[in-house]
């Protein structure tokens, strides 16, 4: 029975690891400026924890194989050094790993979430609601019109609750259902929630952030490749949660300018 356990645990450990290593199911291509740092850290964590995983499972397998009771009258043995090697190993090795991950990781995290956005960022206001995202560009005056929740009206397409009759800055705001941005230019989003909590997640951008009702949450990034990617909601928001998505379109600066002019003309 011990040998069977050893074989099964070994197979489980090796097959699981092989599938991780084969990248059959793996992260999609990264299209963000901050993404390589995240991918690198994920890979470092994958290697260290992968080694820990395989070594622990194999130790379990080897001991289960070797130390079955064979009724041969042998005496049991205590692990050499008792519990001390365990404490030292865990404290020193895992401790060092914890320190390393914290130092490296904090830097990566700070680079994304704790540094202020570039002052020349493209400003986009994002409204989330059950079960859609809407994006607002400030228009020619480069200023967003103020938001009035009581004026939000789905029927007339007033998703942000704008009041162009009284707010001059709201008149040229451009509201669209897709996030369109130029490549290699910093983008700064302001996340708003109309009703309940939602989240902004683009796997290719390696970024995720909750929309919190009552707060405006800043988020900034730079896309480094053109293309069309899915924005999905990852915060449970109700029955249509699975279907809450929008598209992120990254295009060249010229195409973006052209696109923005066309949208402005439609307003």
């Amino acid at each position, binding site marked *: 029975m*011990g040998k069977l356990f050893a074989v*099964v645990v070994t197979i*489980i450990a090796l097959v*699981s690891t092989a*599938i*991780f290593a084969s990248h059959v*199911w793996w992260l999609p291509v990264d299209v963000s400026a901050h993404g390589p740092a*995240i991918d690198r850290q*994920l890979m470092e*964590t994958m290697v260290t*924890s992968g080694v*820990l*995983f395989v070594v622990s*499972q194999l130790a*379990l397998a080897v001991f*289960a194989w070797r*130390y079955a009771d*064979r009724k041969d009258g042998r*005496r*049991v*043995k*205590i*692990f050499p050094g008792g*519990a001390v*090697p*365990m*404490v030292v190993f*865990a404290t020193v090795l895992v*401790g060092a790993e*914890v320190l390393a*991950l*914290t130092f490296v*990781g904090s830097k990566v*995290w700070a680079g*994304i*979430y704790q540094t202020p956005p570039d002052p020349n960022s493209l400003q986009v206001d994002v409204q989330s*609601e059950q079960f859609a995202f809407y994006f607002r560009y400030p228009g020619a005056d480069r200023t967003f019109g103020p938001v009035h929740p*009581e004026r*939000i009206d789905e029927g007339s397409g007033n998703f942000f609750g704008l009041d162009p009759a009284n707010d001059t800055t709201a008149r040229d705001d451009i509201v669209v259902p897709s996030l369109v941005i130029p490549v290699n230019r910093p983008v700064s989003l302001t996340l708003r929630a*109309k*009703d*309940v*909590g939602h989240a902004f997640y683009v796997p290719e951008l*390696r*970024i*995720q952030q*909750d*929309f*919190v*009702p*009552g*707060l405006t949450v800043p988020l900034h990034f730079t896309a480094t490749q053109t293309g069309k990617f899915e924005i999905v909601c*990852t915060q*449970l*928001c*109700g*029955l*249509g*949660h*699975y279907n809450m998505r929008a598209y992120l379109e990254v295009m060249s600066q010229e195409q973006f300018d052209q696109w923005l002019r066309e949208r402005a003309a439609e307003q």
Partner: protein
Amino acid sequence: MTETTAQHHHAPPRGFLRTHVFSLDHKVIGKQYLDLALVAVCTGMLLSWLMRFHLAWPETPIPGLDKVSPNGAAGGVITPEYYLALMTMHGTIMVFFVLTTAPFAGFGNYFLPIQVGAEDMAFPRINMTSFWVTLLAFLVLVSAFVVGDGPPLSGWTAYAPLSAVGKDAGPGQGVGQTLWAVSITLFCVAQLLGALNFITTTLDLRTKGMSLARMPYATWAWFITSVIGLIAFAVLMPACILLILDRMAGTSFFIPGGLVISDRLQPHSGGSPLLWQHLFWFFGHPEVYIAILPGFGIISQILPVFARKPLLGPRVLISCLIAIAFLSYTVWGHHMFLSGMNPFSATLFSVPTLVITIPATIVTLLWIGTIYGAKLRFTTPALFCLGFVSVFVSGGISGFFLAQPSIDTYLHGTYFVVGHFHFVMGVAAMFGIFAGTYFWAPKMFGRMMNETLGKWHFWLTFIGVYCVFMPMHYLGLAGNVRRYSAFTDDYLKPMIPLHRFITIAALFTGAAQLIFLFNLVRTRLRGPKAPDNPWEATTLEWSTTSPPPFDNFGGRPPVVHHGPNEYGATGAAGDYVMQASPPSARPA
């Protein structure tokens, strides 16, 4: 340490009702908790089957389901809202009524008093009350299936404002969500009473010679878990009451102003959704340890029995359990890295989350080190102990990823998290429950469980859970979002074959549990009679009859002369010395 020379504080009951239903006997109450957990786990697993089936074959009707819920599954096909309702109920039932109820309240109630040599819990009436309140909480929760618009759909975490604004937020968010909040409030009351009872019993009712250093590891774990529970449930209970007030009394603890839901400007202002998250996770993360620490204790106690040698580093083990308990209160924010709280606090919460892996690693190494040089007896409980170590390692290691905010940025809200917590607190805790059941069944029922069936159960479950939960990590890495009732997004469609594999594995693994159920029922009805100490174990429950008499020790409280760890000796009576053996029994 108090000598229990006082008479039993309640007489043996007469009549069926007082003996088996409204019993004050901790053993009956322990079995009642375990039976409740059994009903709950069957319900929870059935719900997960429905969810998994729907994820793999979303268009295929499930025969008979339309009869259970004409609205939720018209024609037998699960609607998106019914999927979320099943998910919410699955999570709530499993976390509260299985993973808390069985290993802590169930086994703890039955064995903590016996292991410390007491005749009963310190407060038998409070003990009975806490069980009946737990049962009431369960009934209130499952009543949501048949009342109003059905069960809530806001998940077991019930994030506000989705959970706080009432029926405007969607089906099930009316009566169903209120029932959820009432149920959890009641559950908290029951657990607080239970925790007080456990703590008092451990501190005040230990028999002569049962110093803290001689206390069995399972009892240590239940004791530490009680302390965690006393603080954790004391936070969740008022949080749920505030949620009920927001829903019914027009307060705004968790609801900010200016929300437009279902085209209606909500009549609230000034609340904070993050406040709910903080209160919930201040309970929620310690809850993970409430679910798993009893498993730590059970494994630490059972492993030496079948390794036939002492547990490596018992004092280190206890220190680690205490360290984990302390640290468990400093890490709740890792659930909220991306919640919109100040990003500086992410680093603050990340460090203790990573540090808590150190005591957890030490404990795991102590178990593996205990197997080294052992004379392993591969009984069913021993196999579940070894399986526990394996799945705990697998689940614990993925925690390394999620503890780092920068990696959580990618993996948060994906199946990686689902795989992680199912391994580490679901499957590992279940393996602890299985190990405990096979180990203690002879004592609880006076009958031995069938070993052949037990081993089949182990092998199918062990391989099955890896087939179910390991692939979830691959899905998460590929960006597969959790809590989706269907995968319509273009990038998610390629994952569907892997989801089908998981579903098939889940159905098979679930079916394997019928072997356990059959074995358990058969054992209780007509299993072979168990001797007093079938496993040659040391702790006090094995010094008394199987099952123990009403007052546990037949009117003669045991006197303890030894620690619980005396295995691998060459004494006159075998390779172990029982805790209640005379002092001279200690071998040279």
